[in-house]
């Protein structure tokens, strides 16, 4: 064991390779549990989507596709900067690491800000089941939609995007922690596992969004006039 590695090798591991393999496997297994969390809720959504196709499409058509699309681009870009910051750590480019990490945080914050704006516009548009909702609006549609099933779709929309946003917030916290570590010089070509596994997590949260976009936003038939802020 090289003495330079001594401080980062935890007492219960034989060598760094074992430690790294262990940490990577832990994160992959954690992501497997995350798949089951989102999988269960996707199952519930799919069942009702199949049962009430017309109502789900009508509700989907009222969601804010413009913000949804912009957010998709924002989030995918943040995945790129995340991947670059992992790469920068591995090759020891400290300045690039700080830039990319900061960019990832800015993009993540942009996503959450736009999401908050979108929730507000949904609130303005009477799209909050139970609290701020106009059943009459939906029965007047041609063909009419069942307001209760529309509320069901909207409930799933809030639960799914809400759970995704909570994961984003956790990821943002982890990114801030990474910036602090990078500042202390604790992210180096030898000591990169923290950013490596947090990177995996960040990409996972992005992939969840890739499934949410078509399920929630692209289900309904949108017209040009729907692209509103």
């Amino acid at each position, binding site marked *: 064991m090289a003495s330079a590695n001594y401080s980062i090798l935890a007492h219960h591991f034989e060598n760094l390779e074992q430690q790294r393999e*262990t940490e990577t496997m832990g994160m992959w297994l954690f992501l497997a*549990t995350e798949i089951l969390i989102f999988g269960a809720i996707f199952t*519930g959504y799919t069942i009702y989507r199949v049962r009430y196709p017309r109502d789900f499409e009508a509700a989907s058509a009222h969601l804010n596709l413009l913000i949804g699309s912009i957010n998709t681009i924002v989030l995918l870009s943040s995945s790129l900067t995340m991947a670059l910051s992992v790469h920068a750590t591995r090759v020891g480019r400290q300045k690039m690491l700080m830039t990319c990490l900061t960019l990832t945080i800015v993009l993540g914050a942009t996503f959450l800000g736009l999401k908050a704006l979108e929730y507000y516009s949904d609130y303005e548009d009477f799209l909050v089941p139970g609290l701020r909702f106009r059943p009459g609006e939906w029965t007047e549609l041609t063909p009419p939609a069942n307001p209760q099933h529309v509320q069901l779709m909207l409930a799933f929309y809030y639960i799914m995007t809400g759970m995704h946003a909570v994961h984003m917030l956790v990821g943002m916290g982890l990114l801030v922690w990474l910036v602090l570590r990078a500042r202390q010089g604790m992210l180096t070509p030898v000591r990169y596992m923290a950013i490596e596994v947090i990177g995996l997590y960040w990409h996972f949260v992005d992939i969840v969004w890739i499934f949410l976009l078509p399920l929630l936003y692209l289900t309904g038939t949108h017209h040009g006039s729907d692209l509103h802020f």
Partner: protein
Amino acid sequence: MSSTITTRFVPQAKARPPRAPEVNYLNVAYGVKSWLLTTDHKRIAILYLFTVTLMFFLGGAAATVIRLNLMTPTGELVTADTYNKLFSAHGIIMVWFFLVPVVPTVLGNFLLPLMIGARDLAFPKLNLLSWYIFTIGAVITLWAILAGGVDTGWTFYTPFSTRSARTNVIPTIIGIFISGFSSILTGLNFIVTMHRMRAPGLTWFRMPLFLWAIYAGSIILVLATPVLAVALILIGVERAWGIGIFDPELGGDPLLFQHLFWFYSHPVVYIMILPAMGVVTEIIPCFARKNIYGYEFVAASSVGIAVLSFFVWAHHMFVAGQSVYSAMIFSALSYLVAVPSGVKVFSWTATLYKGSVSLRTPMLFAVGFIALFTMGGLTGLMLAALGVDMHVHDTYFIIAHFHFIMVGGAVMGYMGGLHFWWPKMTGRMYSEFLSKLAALIIFVGFMLTFLPQFVLGYLGMPRRYHVYPPEFQILNVMSSAGASILAVGYVLPLFYLIWSLYGGKPAGPNPWGATGLEWQTPSPPPPHNFDETPIVTTAPYEYSLEETDGVG
């Protein structure tokens, strides 16, 4: 006996006889802080031991009042509302805060690194964190139960739990939701540890079968618990905002809740029983002085049970309105689970056959386990049959069946394991006479409590009722009398195990003459488990009938 040890454990330097070390995990540091901030898996196991034991007696107290109330057909002790809260509290505490965590977090935590020759679990801080999460979840749930209670039963069936129940549903599910993360983190930690931390030479097929069982149970913990989390979130959302996710009046479907709930809660009964099966698989070869019969088949049966456990959940819903065809398929799949379970029972009995059996305390519990688990398993097959299930659904037959598996199986297995490894954990022996007496009392008390319930259920007494027709009274009084005997059997170990810490004989590293890495380190083990990483060259069970001295 010493020859067994040297073939099994070849230290890198010259062989030294294990002796009691000056420093062990218990005396390495003192004070509350040294326990609450520990990352030593052995100390965390002791923390869990305190917590789950407390929860066991709280859940048991609820059961005591239930049985007292059922002494009379009119239920004079408590009101119907209180009764509903009592059986809900009993189920919630026992399932989530005792049966699911007990064997993995106490015995698994303590033994897993010792059995694979590692210095700790893969993620020691995560291990401590999971104890804190578990404790926070337990405190919230207990608070919800004490401050008004919850009356939905442990199953939270909708729409009752989302619309009609006027009790603390949301605080309770928050507590369970939080404790679920403890399950996930523990399972994750165990799986990664077994994959990445095994000592040199310790191949998968040289692992003790207890670890195969823990591995299978951990897979279920990791994959099933998230689904429960979602089911609970959806209940909370529906209850708080009146959105009809499961409410048929609002377009939802109550059957979806049952699917999500049982997708977790059926595999979860295998989380309870699999590790206990693993415990029994360690005890039987040791006290029969014979190697386990069919090692590979027992290992595969653990994994087989874990896999099949995910494909039988809808047998809880045969009368809930699902399609007849899916009921038929789930019935057939449920029968399949009997195959790996049967493999285990045959393997245990084949190991006992012509063995040099000594009925020490752990062995009494293990033999009791085989008897009670087999009865529980066979009645499970009756319930997997559609016709029989229609007749006895939601009756005491179900109660008796799953208590045979959960109490007769999981708790017996845990008690056996606790008595088997207690000398290793504490370095002390307990009273042989009192512990054998406790094993006997538990077995007799258990039989008297739950055998009458099979009859009651078959005659048509529904579960969860606060009153019953007078003709059922004799059987109910028998059951309550048995419960009081059972209570004595459970309280007794509390005394002699605590006494053993002060007055027990020093156990030495290997009081049972058992093979396995954990017996080759001193008792109690040093903080880092092994002075030198062991190199494993042989199979886990190296018993032979010739050398039986030292045991029995």
